[in-house]
């Protein structure tokens, strides 16, 4: 599988994502600078975690209008896979590639914690390697992870099975305990927890491995 990681100024999980992708897929991803306008031909694009543009104004807002984003949208429109992790999820909502918004955590503090995550849908390209309703342990580390959408949107997400991950213990006040959602077509997913940080048994588990290997099998 070929992949690319977009590097925004202030991204800081770009290396973590690259290490995880190389470890699991065997290929090092392309690292693409946000000012570029072309994407290499890849199967998966990752918008990594971090504090792009310092999280100033709103998390993900400035990145969402970066030059590379047109190519990222085209990649998604072509049905290829796109995932946003943490800050990447915030970018996806700001770019309107996923509905809703990520607000300040209900407790107002940054929260770094390994949380139980429930796999709410195991039929997506990202979660086929998990079993529905199984509980995996994945760290979160964010300040703005409190998922908000209006009632109609929530109803739609639930009705269409688009809530992919739910918190077992909600760390941030997200509505419906939402930790990750997918678009209607099933190729664009955003989640706040960091699967790329749990792909090595020495570092607190491998519960993130199926996330990446599922996509690899899907392509």
């Amino acid at each position, binding site marked *: 599988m070929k992949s690319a990681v977009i590097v925004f*100024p*202030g991204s*800081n*999980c770009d*290396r*973590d994502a690259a*290490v*995880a992708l190389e470890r699991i897929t065997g290929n090092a991803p392309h690292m693409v600078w946000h000012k570029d306008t072309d994407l290499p031909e890849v199967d998966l694009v990752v918008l990594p*975690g*971090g*504090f792009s*543009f*310092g*999280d*100033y104004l709103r998390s993900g807002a400035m990145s969402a209008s970066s030059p590379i984003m047109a190519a990222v949208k085209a990649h998604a429109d072509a049905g290829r896979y796109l995932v946003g992790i943490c800050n990447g999820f915030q970018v996806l909502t700001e770019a309107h590639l996923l509905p809703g918004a990520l607000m300040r955590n209900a407790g107002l*503090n*940054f*929260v*770094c*914690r390994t949380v139980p995550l429930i796999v709410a849908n195991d039929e997506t390209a990202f979660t086929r390697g998990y079993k529905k309703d199984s509980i995996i342990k994945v*760290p979160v*580390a964010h*300040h703005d992870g409190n998922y908000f959408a209006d009632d109609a949107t929530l109803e739609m997400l639930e009705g269409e099975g688009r809530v992919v991950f739910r918190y077992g213990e909600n760390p941030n006040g997200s509505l419906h305990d939402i930790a990750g959602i997918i678009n209607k077509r099933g190729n664009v997913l955003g989640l706040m927890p*960091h699967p*790329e*940080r749990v792909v*090595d048994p*020495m*570092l*607190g588990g491998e519960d993130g491995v199926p996330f990446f290997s599922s996509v690899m099998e899907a392509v």
Partner: protein
Amino acid sequence: MTSTVEATKDTMSEITPEIVAEHGLTEDEYALIVKRLNREPNLTELGIFSVMWSEHCSYKSSRFWLAKLPTKGPQVIQGPGENAGVVDLGDGDAAVFKMESHNHPSFIEPYQGAATGVGGIMRDVFTMGARPVANMNALRFGAPEHAKTRHLVAGVVSGIGGYGNCMGVPTIGGETNFDPRYNGNILVNAMTVGLARTDKIFYSAAKGVGNPVVYVGSKTGRDGIHGATMASAEFDDDSDEKRPTVQVGDPFTEKLLLEACLELMNEDAIIAIQDMGAAGLTSSSVEMADKGGVGIKLDLDQVPQREESMTAYEMMLSESQERMLMVLQPGREDVARKIFEKWGLDFAIIGITTDTGHLTLSHGGEIVCDIPIAPLADDAPKYERPWVASKQQDVIEASEVKAPETLSSALECLMGTPDLCSRRWIWEQYDYTVMADTMQIPGGDAGVVRVHGTQKGLAVTTDVTPRYCEADPREGGMQAVAETWRNLTATGAKPLAITDCLNFGNPERPEIMGQFVGCIEGMAEACKALDYPVVSGNVSLYNETNGQGILPTPAIGGIGLIEDVSRMATLAFKDEGDVILLLGKTIGHLGQSLYQRHIDGDVKGAPPPVNLDKERKIGDFVRTLITNGTATAVHDVSDGGIAVAIAEMAMASGLGAKLATPSEVEAPHGFWFGEDQARYIVTVKCDDAHKVITHILEAGIKVNRLGLVGGNSLDIEGDAPISVEKLKATHEAWLPAYMSTN
């Protein structure tokens, strides 16, 4: 252009004794300046002298004593004197690290003060070519009941997180204390460890004449002017007046600066590089020139400025953050400019190195400063301040301290005190897993990060027990070093070197100076005995309000190397049936213990004595038990004694233990809560126990078999058992409850 400073003098306000005093200089110091210059300085020059000769920059009260610390060893690549210390990790890897205080700014504006402290220490590390891989923070707050404490804790913690998290550097540990002696002067000490290649380390000595001096990073504003002199002044009740000197941190810009600097360091372009920290442009340019033995000429009109009509004085004294000064190879300016522009940062050539030995500044077409560099740096005043030794305290026998109703009730009480409760509320606000190399998260003996792409681990800890330092500065200084050594050892790491942050009261008072001297002597002795040199550090004096000094707090930051992270120890119990051993001798020393403080009600007496030979022998032995795979869990014994150590091992695992007090013990509370040094709790598999005990005894080390891991409560024979769950609930409760009340 006029060529002498004399010509501009009459446009400057005359230097009055009041102006001299406002700059924190004594009359004698001013007289010395006039003598060295052979004339009166103008205001800009006076400002420059005042920051360079401040306690913060010149270490005038401490230099004499700092020289007593051992700084050498085969592992040391760079000792004190550079932006940070450097030690060898083998295979071409080096660790670059330092700790620094941001006490006064954090008291005035906790969020920004702490944030810019973290930003500053990270710059010290990446200036040397290292990518920061771990942050630590050592915090001291006033009494929980004090009106300001909660607000300060909230602000400091979110400031540290706000900066470190944005930089993408994991914060993997620290320490936190509360004591009324910090009511008016909190301590915020931040430490950063970075990784570099031994052949790619960058230094600050400006070499060569005619080389371009380059400014990069953020623009200069009127931030923190006189921050460095403020950091050296005592507080009084109208210190609110000093507020505008607070700087606002911009971690996003610093992240860009980090990436841009590391990118440029891959090119052959930098001769010297120095961050602009305290005293900004002044200290960076003077220090670079002084170390390289050259002069420097700056054209202040070229300095990127955020505000209009800034004066030379303001530009030289501004402490705007996120800036660096570099001397480049001539001809490489464009390579550098391109990189900084890519990252959206200011880049300006603002000067040139010269052969004059002078710092020469021009502004608006006039020379506004022309002073020899040597007196600014090397010839700064150095004081051997008078000191008196602290009074020796009597040793208190355990039998003189009242026994608790039950050991378990005392333990439960202790685990819920501000001194021993869980710091989770703090460290969950820090991203400790970013960079995906964190092997031990906060909550253990030391934080551990893997050296990226290798099997090596870097263990990091910070420690000091201020109440011991006050009761006996020398023992306290030794103990602080020994405890870091022990915490590193408990993970299986070989301790390599330390950095320090020496926080004390007003050195002009002989008792305070006596504490300083005692602590340094104790530290020096421990460093020598443990082959554990000091490679960097920082001194923060005048932590005093209305004549009340803080507890003497020489915070020590230690780092150690784990050769193979698959052979690392953690403190959590592993399996039912494992045998719990105590290594090291227990007398039951309760003087200055937390038991005394919380159960008996009064802290007094001598602190536990430190025996460095034993410390080393037992630690080395424990490390082999870890590296040969025999130890299943390890934890050192410190605050709260054996009972607390075992409780921490139980809570981390959810497993309980069946324990018994050794038959020869006369005062069980002394045994379980005494804070005797050089001890570890080690668990081993039941089958190995006999053999291990024999080996320990053969090595001449005292060992007690305390019991077995198992069940879900801590159960000391003859005492009331207590469930691990209950202990954990108590342990986790205090801090979040405290922080959520108003």
